[in-house]
C-alpha cells in the first residue's frame, strides 16, 4: 500500500465551498455526494494548490505524523523506496532538481564584498549601472581596414539587458502557455528563452528575436524554419538533472499540438537517445556546430549545453574549440520534467565548482575571452546569480525559479503530468489555469526585481558594469569551506 506522506487538514472555518476539491488534480481531495470533502491523503503531493485557493484559509497540509522506526542508516525514504521497488521492479522516477541536503550549496558558503572608504560605493537607483551582457565569440585579434579604421570582425552576439535568461524547458514537458509566458517575458525584458528539445510552436514564431531553439539528440521539430526562427541555436549534450541520460516523453503526452510541434505521430513515444548518435567524439561536435552554422548562414551564435560532470573543465575547453560561441553549463541541482531518481541525486557536480573550474581552465588555456559561459542549475535568487558571475560566468539561466514565478511550489511531481498549477501538464483543463499574459508579467517582475538587486550588490562593491564583476573572485570570500574547496573556487576565506 502506498505510504501516506502528507496529511490534508482543515479547520472549523471551512465553508464547504469545495474549491479545494476542484483545484486538486491528483485526486487527493474528493467532493463526495452529500458527504462533503473526502481526503485521500496518500495521493497528496503537497503542491499547495488547494491551500492557495481556499477562500477562507481553512485547509493546510502537514507531514504525516506516522513514522517508521528511526534508523540512522536506513532512513524512511530509503525503506519506502525499497518497498516500492520490491513491489514494482521499477527504476525510480523523479522530477525537478536534486533535493538532497548532503551536497553543499556553495552559494550559501560564499559572502560578497562591499566598498568602504578607499573606493566609493554607488547608488544604483541614481547613478548609471550597467547590466547589459553580450554573449558570443571574440576573435583573437582586432582587424583594421583602410586608413587604419577598426573593422568589426566579431561573430554574431546575443545582447542581454540583464545577465539572466530562461533555461531550456520543452513543450511537452511543460505546457504551451508556459512557453508563451516565457517568450513574452523574454521579449519584454530584453533577454532570451529557450525552447528545449520539443520544437517551437508556430504561434511563438513572432518571438524569434528572443528565442533560443534547441537541437537535442531526439531532433524533435528540428527543420530549417525552426533553426532560422531563433536568435541562437543550442546543441544540448546533457542537463544537470540527468547527465548521460536521454529523455522519454510517453505517447500519452504526444497529443494535438505537441505531436505537431515535435513532428512525432500522436500516441507514439518521443525518445531522446542518451547521446547524439552523430557525436561520439569532440570532433563530431565541431561537425554538428559547423553544420548548424552553415544551415543558418553564420548569422547566429551556436551554444552547446553540457551537464556539470567531473571533467567538465576539459570538456568545456573542447567545446570552446569546437566553434561553439557560448557554453552553457548546467549543475547538479538543475531541474527536469522527469529523470531517474538515482541519476538526479547522484550524478554530476554543483554548478559553483563547475563554473570556477571551467573559468580557470579556459583562462589557463588563454581562451576564456573567446567564448561566453552561462551557468545554470539551482540559481535561486539574485545573490546566487552575482556569485556565479563573480566565479566566472557571463550570465545565468533560470528554470525552476521561473516556474516558481508561474506558481510552481516544487512538489516534484512533473513526471505524473498532473501538475495542478497547469505548468508541467498537457491536460487542457489544467493548462488553462495558467494565463500566459499574467504569467509573463510575473516573470518580468521577478527578473526586474533580481536585476535591481544585482545592481544594488554591484553598487555596494563600487562596480558599475557587469563585465567588471565577471570572474572578479576577489569580490568573494568563503565560510565553512576547506582549503580544497577554496582552491577550486579560487577564493579566499572570510577575514583573509
Amino acid at each position: 500500500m502506498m505510504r501516506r506522506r502528507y496529511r490534508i487538514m482543515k479547520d472549523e472555518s471551512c465553508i464547504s465551498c469545495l474549491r479545494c476539491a476542484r483545484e486538486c488534480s491528483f485526486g487527493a481531495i474528493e467532493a463526495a455526494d452529500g458527504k462533503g470533502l473526502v481526503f485521500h491523503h496518500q495521493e497528496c503531493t503537497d503542491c499547495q494548490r488547494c491551500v492557495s485557493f481556499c477562500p477562507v484559509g481553512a485547509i493546510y497540509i502537514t507531514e504525516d505524523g506516522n513514522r517508521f522506526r528511526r534508523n540512522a542508516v536506513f532512513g524512511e525514504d530509503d525503506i519506502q523506496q525499497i518497498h516500492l521497488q520490491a513491489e514494482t521492479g521499477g527504476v525510480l522516477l523523479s522530477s525537478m532538481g536534486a533535493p538532497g541536503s548532503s551536497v553543499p550549496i556553495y552559494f550559501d558558503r560564499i559572502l560578497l564584498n562591499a566598498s568602504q572608504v578607499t573606493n566609493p560605493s554607488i547608488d544604483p537607483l541614481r547613478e548609471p549601472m550597467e547590466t547589459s551582457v553580450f554573449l558570443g565569440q571574440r576573435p583573437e585579434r582586432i582587424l583594421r581596414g583602410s586608413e587604419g579604421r577598426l573593422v568589426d570582425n566579431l561573430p554574431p552576439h546575443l545582447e542581454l539587458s540583464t545577465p539572466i535568461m530562461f533555461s531550456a524547458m520543452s513543450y511537452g514537458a511543460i505546457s504551451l502557455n508556459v512557453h508563451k509566458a516565457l517568450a513574452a517575458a523574454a521579449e519584454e525584458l530584453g533577454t532570451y528563452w529557450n525552447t528545449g528539445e520539443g520544437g517551437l510552436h508556430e504561434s511563438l514564431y513572432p518571438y524569434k528575436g528572443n528565442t533560443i531553439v534547441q537541437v537535442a539528440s531526439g531532433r524533435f521539430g528540428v527543420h530549417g524554419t525552426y533553426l532560422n526562427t531563433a536568435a541562437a541555436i543550442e546543441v544540448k549534450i546533457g542537463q544537470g538533472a540527468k547527465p548521460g541520460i536521454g529523455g522519454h516523453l510517453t505517447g500519452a503526452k504526444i497529443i494535438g499540438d505537441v505531436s505537431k510541434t515535435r513532428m512525432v505521430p500522436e500516441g507514439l513515444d518521443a525518445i531522446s537517445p542518451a547521446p547524439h548518435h552523430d557525436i561520439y567524439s569532440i570532433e563530431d561536435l565541431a561537425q554538428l556546430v559547423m553544420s548548424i552554422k552553415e544551415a543558418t548562414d553564420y548569422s547566429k551564435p551556436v551554444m552547446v549545453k553540457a551537464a556539470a560532470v567531473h571533467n567538465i573543465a576539459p570538456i568545456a575547453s573542447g567545446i570552446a574549440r569546437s566553434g561553439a560561441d557560448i557554453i552553457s553549463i548546467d549543475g547538479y541541482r538543475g531541474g527536469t520534467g522527469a529523470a531517474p531518481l538515482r541519476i538526479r541525486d547522484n550524478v554530476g557536480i554543483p554548478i559553483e565548482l563547475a563554473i570556477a573550474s571551467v573559468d580557470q581552465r579556459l583562462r589557463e588555456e588563454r581562451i576564456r575571452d573567446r567564448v561566453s559561459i552561462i551557468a545554470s542549475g539551482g540559481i535561486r535568487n539574485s545573490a546566487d546569480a552575482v556569485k556565479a558571475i563573480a566565479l566566472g560566468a557571463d550570465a545565468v539561466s533560470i528554470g525552476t525559479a521561473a516556474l516558481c514565478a508561474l506558481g510552481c511550489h516544487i512538489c516534484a511531481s512533473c513526471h505524473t503530468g498532473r501538475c495542478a498549477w497547469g505548468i508541467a501538464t498537457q491536460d487542457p483543463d489544467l493548462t488553462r489555469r495558467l494565463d500566459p499574459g499574467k504569467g509573463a508579467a510575473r516573470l518580468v517582475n521577478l527578473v526586474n526585481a533580481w536585476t535591481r538587486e544585482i545592481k544594488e550588490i554591484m553598487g555596494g562593491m563600487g562596480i558599475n558594469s557587469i563585465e567588471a564583476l565577471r570572474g572578479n573572485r576577489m569580490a568573494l570570500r568563503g565560510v565553512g569551506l576547506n582549503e580544497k574547496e577554496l582552491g577550486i573556487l579560487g577564493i579566499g576565506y572570510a577575514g583573509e
Partner: protein
Amino acid sequence: MEALDIRECGLEGIRKHGDGEITVTGCLGERYIGCGMKEGVLRIKGTPGNALASYLDGGTVLVDGNAQDAAADTMNAGLLAVNGSAGDALAYGMRGGRAYVLGDAGYRAGVHMKAYGERKSILVIGGRTGSFLGEYLAGGIIIVLGLGYEGKDITGYFCGNGMYAGTIYLRTGKVPLNLSDKLVKRNVEEEEKEDILRPIITDFASVFSISARRCLEGGFIAIEADGSKSYSQLYAAV
C-alpha cells in the same frame, strides 16, 4: 585692510582674525581655508587647496582665481564667491548660504544640496559644469548660466540623477544630455524668472561686478523631480 601670507601665518593666523576683513596671499594648495568660519571676510589670492570654505557658517570667502575640489562642502551659511572656476564636488551637501562660481564647475557640483526651514542653499555657476550636476538634490536652488557657452551643452551627462527635491535652473533651451526619465523639465515662465531668478542672479552679478542683464538674457529651463516616480515602489517588504 590687513594682508597675511599664508606661508607665514598658516591656517591658525587666518582663524585669529575674527570678524575683520583680511587678504590672504600666497595660497598654493593649502587645504581647509575658511573651514567652519562664522564671520568676517577673507580675500584669497593664489590657488587655495581642497575643502575651501567647507562648513562655512557665516562670513564671506572671496577667491581671486580658481578653487580646487570640495569647495563649500557641507556649507551652512555665508557666501563663497570664486572669481575663476571650481574643481569637482563643489558644494556637496550644502545646507544654506550662497556659493557663487563665475567660471566653470567640475563634476558633481551641488550633489545632495538641501533646504530646511529658513535655510536654503543657493549655488550659481556662471559657466558650465561637468557631469552629475545636482545629483541627489534634496532641496535648494542650482543655477547654471552658461555664459560664453551659448548654444552649447552647459551641463554634462546624468544631470540631476536621483534628485528628489529642489530645482536646477539652466539658462539654455537645450535639455541636458541623457536626462533621467524620473525628472521633468519645464520652461521657466516670466513670473518665476522675475520672482526667483532675478534677485539671485542680480546679487551674483553684483558680487563679480558683471552685467546682470546679460546673465538674465534669454530663456531658462527648470529641472525637477517627477513626484509620481518615487523609488519606494521598487521595494517589497519580506
